[in-house]
C-alpha cells in the first residue's frame, strides 16, 4: 500500500501525517458538526430506475428553476404599481402615452434593459412549459398507476402544484398591465362577481373597490413573487422528499420486485443525467425565448377598459375555462330582483374545478372500488388498466375540445370556418366525443391485452410465411424470451367484486347494501371486461402444444427455406445447412 500521500516516514523515525487537502478538511469539519456524510451516504447511494417517462416530472422541476432565475431578474426592474405615468422609453409607437408604471416598466424591461426581453420571453415560455410538463407528468403517473399506495399523498401534492401553477401563471400574465392582461383580469372579475350572493362583495374586496382600481397589481405581485412561489417551493420539496422516501417506482421485469429498486445510483450516473437535463430544459427555454415572440405587450398597448382586441385569449392552461365560457348558452335566473348568472358561474367556477377534481379523485375512487390495501412499487402498463386509461383519454379529449372552443375565433379565421357553427358543434361534442373516446380507448386497451396473451401463449409473429406440403399457408410463431414473458406476466389478476346480497343469512336487511352494490357495479364496470393473464397451466399447455407444432414443422421441413428440390432427390445439401433465421 502506498502511504506516501497521507504519511511520511523514512523507516527510522516515527511517521508524521501528511497535511490533509483543504477540501477534505472542510469536509471533515462539516461532517464532524453536521453528520452529513452519514446522513447523506444512504441518499447518495439511492438508486433511480431509468425510463424516459420518469423524466417528465424533471421537465417541470427544471422549468420551475428557470422561472425562479428569470423571475428574480425581472423583479429587479419591474415596478408593481398602477400609478399613472407618461412613457418616455425607446419604443416609438407608445412614447408620450399615459400608462401604469407596471406597463411602463415592462416596456422598459423589454426595450431598455439589456437582455430584458429575452428574460421576459424565457420567463413566459418557461411558465407555459412548467404547467404543460406538470400535466404530462400527471398523465404518466395516472396511466401507470404510480399513484397507488403508498404514493397517494404525493398525487395530491402534485394536483395542488398544478392548481398553484395555474394561479401563479394567471397572476404573472396579469402583471404587465397590458390590454390582454387587463382583459384577463376583467374576466376574472366577472367570474368572481358571478358567485351567487357574495360575488360583488368578493370582487370589491379583491380589487379594493370598483374594477380595475389601483390595488390589484401590487396585490398580484406579492402573490406572484412571494406567496405562491413559496408555496410551490415548499410543496416541491415535500414532493421530492416523499419521492426519496418511497423510492421510485419501476417497470416490472426480471429481478425487479415490489421490494427492490433496480437502476443507477444517484451519484454519479443519475445526478449527471438529471443535471444535464437541467441544461437542456434551460436551453430549450432560452432558444424559445430568443427566437419566438411571446406576449408582445408593446403591441397590445396599455390596458384601457374601453378597448379590446380580436384574439383575446388567456395562456393555454386557462384555455379550458375560456372554452367553457365561450360555448355556454346565456342562461340566467332572475329571482327576488337578483340575477344568477349560470352562464358565467357554471363554466367559469364550477366546471373547470370539477374536471380537475375528477382526475384528482380517480385514484381514491379506484382504491375504494378495488379495496386494495397493498403497497405497489411496480408500475402497470396503461393497457392493463383499460378503464383508467380510457378515462384519462376522455379527459384529455375534453380538455383539447375546450381549448379549441376557447380559440374558436382563431380556428374560424385560420381554417375558414363559421364561428357560430364551431360553437354549436362544441356544445354537442363536449358531451359526446369524450364518451366515444372512452369506449374506443377501452376497447383498444383490451385488444392490446389480448394481443399480449396471444404472444405469451403462441409466441411472436416472425413474419415468415410457411407453405405446408398440402399447399396451405401459415405464419411461423416463435416463443418469446423468458425475460419478456416475465415482464408480460408480472401483473396481478383483477378481482371483480361480486354483487352483494340485500339481506344477510338471517334475512336481516343489510344497511350498507346500496353502497356495497354501487361498489360492486363500479368494480364490474371497471374490470369485468379486462383480459387476465394466462394461468400457469394454460401457459404450459400452450408451450407443450407449440413444441409439438415445431417438431411437426421440423419433421416436414417447414422451418427451413425450400430450394425446390426437396422431393425430387436433387437437393445439393442437407436442409440443416440452411437454417431459417437466427433469432
Amino acid at each position: 500500500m502506498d502511504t506516501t500521500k497521507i504519511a511520511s516516514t523514512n523507516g527510522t523515525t516515527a511517521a508524521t501525517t501528511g497535511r490533509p487537502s483543504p477540501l477534505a478538511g472542510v469536509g471533515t469539519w462539516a461532517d464532524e458538526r453536521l453528520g452529513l456524510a452519514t446522513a447523506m451516504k444512504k441518499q447518495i447511494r439511492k438508486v433511480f430506475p431509468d425510463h424516459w417517462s420518469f423524466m417528465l416530472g424533471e421537465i417541470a422541476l427544471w422549468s420551475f428553476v428557470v422561472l425562479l432565475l428569470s423571475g428574480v431578474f425581472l423583479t429587479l426592474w419591474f415596478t408593481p404599481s398602477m400609478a399613472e405615468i407618461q412613457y418616455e422609453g425607446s419604443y416609438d409607437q407608445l412614447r408620450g402615452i399615459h400608462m401604469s408604471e407596471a406597463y411602463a416598466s415592462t416596456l422598459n424591461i423589454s426595450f431598455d434593459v439589456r437582455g430584458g426581453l429575452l428574460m421576459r420571453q424565457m420567463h413566459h415560455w418557461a411558465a407555459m412549459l412548467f404547467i404543460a410538463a406538470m400535466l404530462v407528468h400527471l398523465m404518466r403517473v395516472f396511466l401507470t398507476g404510480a399513484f397507488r399506495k403508498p404514493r397517494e399523498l404525493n398525487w395530491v401534492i402534485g394536483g395542488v402544484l398544478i392548481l398553484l401553477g395555474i394561479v401563479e401563471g394567471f397572476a404573472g400574465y396579469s402583471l404587465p398591465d397590458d390590454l390582454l392582461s387587463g382583459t384577463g383580469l376583467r374576466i376574472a372579475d366577472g367570474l368572481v362577481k358571478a358567485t351567487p350572493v357574495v360575488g360583488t362583495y368578493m370582487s370589491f374586496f379583491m380589487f379594493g373597490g370598483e374594477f380595475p382600481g389601483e390595488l390589484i397589481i401590487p396585490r398580484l405581485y406579492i402573490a406572484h413573487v412571494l406567496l405562491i412561489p413559496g408555496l410551490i417551493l415548499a410543496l416541491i420539496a415535500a414532493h421530492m422528499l416523499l419521492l426519496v422516501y418511497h423510492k421510485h417506482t419501476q417497470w416490472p421485469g426480471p429481478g425487479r420486485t415490489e421490494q427492490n429498486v433496480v437502476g443507477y445510483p444517484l451519484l454519479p450516473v443519475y445526478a449527471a443525467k438529471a443535471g444535464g437535463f437541467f441544461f437542456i430544459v434551460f436551453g430549450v427555454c432560452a432558444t424559445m425565448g430568443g427566437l419566438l415572440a411571446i406576449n408582445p405587450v408593446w403591441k397590445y398597448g396599455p390596458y384601457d377598459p374601453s378597448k379590446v382586441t380580436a384574439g383575446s385569449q388567456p395562456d393555454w392552461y386557462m384555455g379550458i375555462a375560456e372554452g367553457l365560457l365561450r360555448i355556454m348558452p346565456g342562461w340566467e335566473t332572475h329571482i327576488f330582483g337578483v340575477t344568477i348568472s349560470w352562464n358565467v358561474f357554471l363554466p367559469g367556477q364550477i366546471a373547470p374545478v370539477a374536471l380537475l377534481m375528477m382526475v384528482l379523485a380517480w385514484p381514491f375512487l379506484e382504491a375504494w372500488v378495488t379495496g386494495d390495501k397493498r403497497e405497489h412499487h411496480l408500475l402497470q402498463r396503461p393497457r392493463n388498466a383499460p378503464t383508467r386509461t380510457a378515462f384519462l383519454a376522455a379527459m384529455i379529449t375534453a380538455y383539447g375540445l375546450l381549448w379549441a372552443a376557447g380559440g374558436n375565433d382563431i380556428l374560424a379565421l385560420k381554417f375558414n370556418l363559421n364561428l357560430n357553427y364551431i360553437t354549436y358543434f362544441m356544445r354537442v361534442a363536449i358531451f359526446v366525443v369524450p364518451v366515444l373516446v372512452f369506449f374506443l380507448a377501452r376497447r383498444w386497451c383490451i385488444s392490446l391485452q389480448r394481443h399480449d396473451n396471444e404472444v405469451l401463449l403462441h409466441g411472436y409473429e416472425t413474419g415468415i410465411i410457411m407453405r405446408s406440403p398440402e399447399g396451405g399457408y401459415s405464419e411461423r410463431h416463435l416463443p418469446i424470451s423468458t425475460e419478456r414473458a416475465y415482464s408480460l406476466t408480472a401483473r396481478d389478476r383483477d378481482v371483480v367484486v361480486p354483487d352483494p346480497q340485500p339481506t344477510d343469512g338471517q334475512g336481516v336487511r343489510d344497511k350498507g347494501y346500496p353502497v356495497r352494490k354501487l361498489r360492486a357495479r363500479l368494480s364490474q364496470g371497471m374490470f369485468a371486461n379486462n383480459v387476465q393473464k394466462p394461468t400457469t397451466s394454460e401457459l404450459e399447455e400452450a408451450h407443450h402444444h407449440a413444441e409439438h407444432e415445431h417438431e411437426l414443422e421440423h419433421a416436414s421441413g417447414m422451418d427451413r427455406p425450400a430450394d425446390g428440390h426437396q422431393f425430387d432427390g436433387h437437393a445439393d445439401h442437407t436442409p440443416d445447412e440452411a437454417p431459417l433465421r437466427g433469432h
Partner: protein
Amino acid sequence: MRLLNRSAGRLSQHRRGPLAGLVVLLLGLLLTGGLYTVLAPAQAQKAESDAELVAKGRELFLVGCSFCHGQNGEGISTARPGYQIGPSLVGVGAAAVDFQVGTGRMPMAQPGAQVPRKEVQYSEEEIAALAAYVASLGPGPAIPSEQDYSLEGLSEEEREEAVVRGGQIFLTNCTACHNFDGSGGAMPQGGYAPQVRGVEPKYIYEAMLTGPQAMDNFTNGNLSPEMKRDVIAYLQSLETTPEYGGFGMGGIGPVAEGLFAWLVGIGSLVGFAVWIAAHTTRTSKDKVEA
C-alpha cells in the same frame, strides 16, 4: 323640300360608291374639328372628358355590375323582403368603388358571408370610369389623394406624434375586429375581418371612409382625415419596425403561443428525455440493486 329630297336622293345614289365612306369620314372630322375649335374653352374640355368618363363607366357598369346593382345603380331587391342581390350604390361615392373594385372584391363572384379580396378584374382607367359613374349617381366620399394619407411635410417630431396617436386610434377603433397586430379576426357566421398588415394606404383610407361590408363606417365626422392618416402611419410604422421578440407565430396571440409551447417545447423536451434515457454508458451492465 322637293329639291332637298331630290338632292338627298341623288346623294344617296352615291352612298355605296367607293369613296363615300372616306368622304363621310372627312366631313365628320371637319365638322367636329370645326365645332371643337369654336366651342371648347378650357373648363368645358374637362367637363366633356368627365362626362365621357361617366359614359364609359356607365357602359362598363351596365356590362359588369348592373346585374346585381340595377341599370342605374339603384340596387335590386330579392323576393325576400330586406334582402338584396346588390345594394343601391347611390351616394356610396367614388371611394367605395375604388376600394371594392380596386381590391378585387367587386364584381362579387358569389353571395356569401364574406366578399373576399380576389384578382382585380378592371384596369386602372376602367376603375376610374366606374368610380366616376357611381359618383355621378349621388354625392359620396371621393377617392382620397396621396396627400390625404402621407406624412409628407411634417417635421420628424410631428410624424412621431402622428404614429403614436394613430396607434391609440387603431387600438380603440380597429383591433376589436382586426386584432392588435392587424392580423385579422373572425366575424359571426363565417365572415372575417381581413388582415390589414400590408394593405395599401389608399385602401386602408377608403376602408375607413366607406365601411365595406360588415365593417363600421368611419366618416370624417367620426375619425377626422388627420386621424385616418395617423392610423395609416401607425400601421406602416409597424411594418418598418423589426419583430423585437422574434418570430411572431402569425401575430394571433396566446392560442398560437400555447400550440408552440406544446409542439415545440414539450415535444422537444420529451424527445430529449427519450434520448437521455436511451443513452447511457452502461445500459445493461452495472445496475445496482438497493
